[in-house]
């Protein structure tokens, strides 16, 4: 049975969505402070991705802007989905940067009030999925640990945050991260090492 192009694209998009929505959400959430903002940005990421998949275009979002790469010479189904994760992360990064620009003041306020645990605890309850048989006290410990690392990450450079998230949380290889950041693989390994050092320093400082 032949499927229309539209149905194929829809199915492909659904696959991408199911595989990456959790990662994108986590990536965004670790950079912004509220669950609602993270949801908002995540939804924008996938709306844009869906728009691109529908048009059959290949988008290569760079740091300084949005550039349309190729739409005719590259085969539609393979081009737009060659590296969907990279594609989604690029969009997410840009949207987070936009968010920072628009809400710089709010971020400063939030940084200042990051010690107010009740506020962040409410959002963590909805985003942190504990094990099923975890007790309440274990859950509280987990949430405080998450909060600690999240704050340590927030104090780092964006590049370091990204490589930590991608390498340790999303389990991307250094080659994949190199592709994302358009840097040589050797630089990525150095970057990972420096990111971990910075995280260690931040965690020790906060203690």
């Amino acid at each position: 049975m032949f499927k229309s192009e539209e149905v194929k694209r829809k199915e492909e998009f659904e696959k991408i969505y199911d595989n990456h929505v959790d990662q994108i959400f986590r990536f965004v959430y670790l950079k912004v402070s509220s669950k609602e903002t993270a949801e908002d940005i995540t939804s924008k990421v996938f709306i844009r991705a869906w728009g691109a998949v529908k048009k059959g275009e290949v988008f290569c979002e760079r740091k300084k802007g949005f550039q349309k790469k190729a739409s005719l010479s590259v085969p539609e189904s393979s081009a737009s989905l060659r590296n969907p994760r990279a594609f989604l992360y690029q969009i997410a990064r840009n949207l987070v940067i936009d968010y920072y620009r628009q809400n710089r003041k709010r971020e400063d306020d939030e940084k200042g009030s990051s010690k107010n645990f009740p506020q962040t605890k409410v959002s963590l309850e909805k985003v942190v999925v504990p094990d099923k048989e975890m007790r309440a006290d274990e859950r509280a410990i987990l949430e405080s640990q998450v909060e600690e690392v999240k704050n340590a990450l927030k104090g780092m450079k964006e590049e370091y945050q990204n490589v930590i998230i991608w390498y340790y949380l999303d389990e991307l290889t250094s080659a994949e991260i190199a592709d994302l950041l358009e840097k040589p693989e050797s630089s990525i390994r150095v970057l990972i090492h420096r990111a971990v050092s910075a995280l260690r320093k931040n965690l020790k400082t906060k203690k």
Partner: protein
Amino acid sequence: MEKKILEKIYVLRKIKPENEWTSKLKEEILESQKKEESLSVFASLGSSVAKKYEVLVKLIRGVSDGNFSFLKTRNVSAFAGVFTFAIFFFVFMLPHFPLDYNRDIIYFPASSPALVEKEGGVEDEEDKRMVAKEEEMEIKKKSIEEPIEKEVAKLRENVRGLKVEVLGMMIEKERDIKKEELTDREITRYLIEIAKEDVATKNEDAMRIMSVEESKEDKKEDLTKDLIEEIKERMSSDETKEEEKETLYYAIEELSLDILKKAQ
């Protein structure tokens, strides 16, 4: 790398969005495409009409599914507006439309009140009469012109045929071939050559006539000059009387004037 740091980082893996939210988001994204398609036809009509259409679609779906929960939504007012408009249109507006199936367009009464007055009136008949008259003229014209054109065409053909016959005979004589062996192109070329020759011959004749005339004129002039000389000799002779001399003098003048005129 320190195990503790790693453990701490791995804790962040527990961060995940709610399943309900993710499935809802997916649905919304994919539904947005259907909405775009359904509204695209009406995009030019404006968003309010498009919204009303959307409400209608929901209504139809709701009725077909047996689900009337849409009545509880905010779109009830939009639905009510559409429904009211539909009733108003069919009950009050439609009977007033002059739905004449012979016409190409339907006139809205408000935009052309003059047409409402003239419906089935005088002007329509006049137009028809004018059209009929014009058609009659056309037919007459054709009936007169056509036979003439046919005759002219026939004559042209005959002339051409004759020319070809004559030409054929000439060529047969000259080249010792049958005229059927000639192509149309060759025939045309010969016709052109003949025509050129005709023109050249006529020109020559004209030139000949002109030269003859000119020579006559020249002769005449010479004769006149000779005559003038004779008259002058006679005038100078002693035997000529005074009265005669005067007459001769005027004759010389007249003849000289003629020569002058011709020279001019």
